[in-house]
């Protein structure tokens, strides 16, 4: 699979595969991100896998100090190219199947009506189409543990709002275009909210503060309002 490498300022570089964000490209990126993490390149502080890019954030001062290289960019560029050239088979990314209970009560889904009207579907259809498919986590970004998942059934896709809503509560489940996602913390946001999960997507006190990882497969399980409140009171 062909790729290009380019600088993202002088403190990061990106490896980009192809021109579109398909599932296969994304899986390659997840697999390679794990390899790059294991390679432990000196001075590289963060890896940001996304739909079709893997961004390596590095500290040029640290890279030069630990390698003696005259150019941190050239050195990191060289390391990543070497790693990619030596690649025989791209390892399958680790993937877990996770079920997330979601309450689709209208009180938790302020944008249900809008989607139902625009897409001419009933609320029941919206819920069943949303909870029927298994989604893949393409990337984590925006907020701690915010998973960008796809692909939503084309009958209920709905564009992101032009003006973001100031306060979306934690646990809100939304749709933006062909993507679906869950707000792990309350935040302003532009996704169309159709339900809410009682599950904590982000728990700063936990050893593993973030529930979902890129590569995970997620299924939403509809629950009643009673079950939602029962779950939260556990």
């Amino acid at each position: 699979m062909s790729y290009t490498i380019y600088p993202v300022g002088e403190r990061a570089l990106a490896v980009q595969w192809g021109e579109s964000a398909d599932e296969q490209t994304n899986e390659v990126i997840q697999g390679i991100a794990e390899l790059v993490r294991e390679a432990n390149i000196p001075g590289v502080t963060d890896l940001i896998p996304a739909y079709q890019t893997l961004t390596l954030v590095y500290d040029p001062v640290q890279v030069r100090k630990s390698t003696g290289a005259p150019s941190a960019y050239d050195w990191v560029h060289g390391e990543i190219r070497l790693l990619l050239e030596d690649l025989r088979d791209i390892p399958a990314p680790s993937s877990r199947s996770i079920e997330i209970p979601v309450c689709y009560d209208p009180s938790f889904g302020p944008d249900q009506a809008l989607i139902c009207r625009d897409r001419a579907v009933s609320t029941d259809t919206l819920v069943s189409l949303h909870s029927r498919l298994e989604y893949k986590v393409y990337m984590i970004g925006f907020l701690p543990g915010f998973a960008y998942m796809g692909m939503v059934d084309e009958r209920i896709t709905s564009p992101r709002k032009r003006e973001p809503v100031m306060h979306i509560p934690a646990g809100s489940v939304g749709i933006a275009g062909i993507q679906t996602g869950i707000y792990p913390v309350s935040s302003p946001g532009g996704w169309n909210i159709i339900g809410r999960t009682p599950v904590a997507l982000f728990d700063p006190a936990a050893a593993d503060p973030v529930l979902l990882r890129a590569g995970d497969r997620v299924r939403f399980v509809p629950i009643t309002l009673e079950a939602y409140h029962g779950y939260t009171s556990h």
Partner: protein
Amino acid sequence: MGIQVIKQGIADSLQDLGRRGYQHLGINPGGVMDEVACRVANMLVGNEPAEAVLELHFPAGSFLFQEEALIALAGADFGATINRTPIPLHTPVVIGRNSVLEFKRPTRGAHCYLAVRDGFRAPRWLNSYSTNLRARVGGYNGRILEKQDEIPFYTAGISPSITGNRDMVVLPWQADVQALYDGGDRIRLVEGHEWDWLNEPSRQLLTCLPFTISAQSDRMGYRLKGPSLKAVSNRQMISTGVTRGTIQLLPSGDLIVLMADHQSTGGYPRLAHVAGVDVPRLAQYRFNEQVGFEIISVAQAEDLLVSRDQSLQQLQGACALRLNKYLQEYGIHRSEL
């Protein structure tokens, strides 16, 4: 014992050099807006560069010192006083027990840093003291400081006392930070991957005309007001990694520069990136001030960053030497009394 907030500031928070290694979980690095000032404040009191500091925005809080402490201020000049007597920036100061540190008037810069010898004591979250305001975690209870908050120091007081009955003792040296913020009157940029998405006249405008830092700016990003820039086409971006200093073109034609609390990914074109060496300088611009840009190469930006780090290392060494000598002589002087 440590400091107590007796008047709340607008956005004072505990920060350090940031939280590295968690962006793949959507947890951004955060940390101080002006890394240079944070490092200078820390080195003046003999700390490691990554020790926790208070980041102050004007109007800043007022702080009661419950015990004697060696402190330093760096970055913005907010007209700091101890018990109403002005104190200098970039200078180690021993502040007496029950003295009050206040900030009267913002004369220069936007972010002021307060360091205390051995640092502020707070639980570290994911290896950092930085406050993540959006996730409400890290720093001091995951939020900005409020009246009555008390932040303890790692080490208690100074023994034997240096101030005695005095409000303070200003140590007789000052760090020269001029060279650390050098770079002329423009902020230097490296072209971004989507630089070519701008049409030619817009590319000219970006480097020829000044932009105004909007009052809608915050720790997440600086919004720039200026000539509306036009993309060649309305191609859609697929979300990708961004960094501190990334300049994105918003659909409105406005620009946003991502700052300390930026998201790890973004879906707007990355026109350019502020060179790391100039991020601290940009962080000291105030709302409604004008900023101009010029383009440099990645290699130049990297060299500038490395050479500034060398200057910081040298200054750190010089500060440590002066401070150790002072404390040693003070100890000898005391024992002879």
